[in-house]
């Protein structure tokens, strides 16, 4: 699934008068405009989508932190953007932060901000990976991985 499957993103740029980049405005095939910086590709939209935020309001999200939707309804009064809703739909099944980014075609920095919002609103549950210290102390994990690989 990609962003183009979801409904038209709300134009949040009106809150950000200075956000207009010195780039070319290209009419995307997917019917919404994409700003492209000449050298950069689609650099701008992710920042606009998170209203310029680069840090999540809650949680630290590793690339392989697992995320699943809690099933709480995404009520309109929660003020979710279409991107938030896309993340919630994707996380019907447990999925890592990196996978969410890959499926939605967004940089992980953007996905982390969206996930922080969802965590604060109780819409997702997360499971963090082991720390390096925990790894050093857990033979069971290694043995399970070896068995799993052999069974492939």
């Amino acid at each position, binding site marked *: 699934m990609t962003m183009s499957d979801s409904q038209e993103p709300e134009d949040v740029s009106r809150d950000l008068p200075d956000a207009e980049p010195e780039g070319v405005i290209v009419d995307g095939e997917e019917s919404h405009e994409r700003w492209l910086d000449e050298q950069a590709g689609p650099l701008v939209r992710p920042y606009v989508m998170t209203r310029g935020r680069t840090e999540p309001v809650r949680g630290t999200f590793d690339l392989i932190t697992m995320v699943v939707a809690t099933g709480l309804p995404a009520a309109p009064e929660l003020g979710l953007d279409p991107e938030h809703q896309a993340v919630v739909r994707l996380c019907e099944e447990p999925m890592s932060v990196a996978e969410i980014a890959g499926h939605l075609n967004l940089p992980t920095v953007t996905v982390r901000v969206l996930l922080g919002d969802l965590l604060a609103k109780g819409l997702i549950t997360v499971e963090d990976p082991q720390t390096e210290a925990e790894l050093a102390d857990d033979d069971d994990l290694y043995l399970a991985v070896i068995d799993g*690989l052999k069974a492939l």
Partner: protein
Amino acid sequence: MDSRRFDRRGRRLPKATKIVVAGGFGVGKTTLVGTVSETKPLRTEELLTDKSVGVDDVEGVEAKSTTTVAMDFGRITIKDEFVLYLFGTPGQERFWFMWDEITLGALGAVVLADTRRLADCFPAVDYFERRGTPFIVAVNCFEGARRFQLDEVEMALNLGEQVPIVLCDARDKESCKDVLVTLVRHAMKTRREKRPVEV
């Protein structure tokens, strides 16, 4: 483990773990990841402005730093409780911050090498040695890599004796499985040896 989260259907939320696949340009990283993954490898494009410039407000949209860096990764569901991710490092080695993020918390790393361009894997070997990440070297069998060349590779890389070197074909599933099993065994052994002795 007891603190493991459950989803609303009462299923456990799996814990994820990862392995890094590194090596020079075009050495077969993405091929290896794809060969053993249950789905087509995914890719994310990261914006360099995020971390390299420390942008923290909307002024970021005007930043002139314009490069993106891509990483590929695949997924293997080990059991309901475990998911293993394989991360290919970005081809451009200068983006070390991405290597740090990919490598932090990894079980270990596979350094892919091509005997025709052996020096290409030196930066990866240096990186994991310096960081203390358990790694093995897998010589990808492009035309003409032969068993006896493993000795030459070992000499050229000047690896510690305990670092395994294996031959592989990144397009072959059994071969990739062997490489990964060799790595995880090696990583387990290495971590055990580093563990402080209990008194």
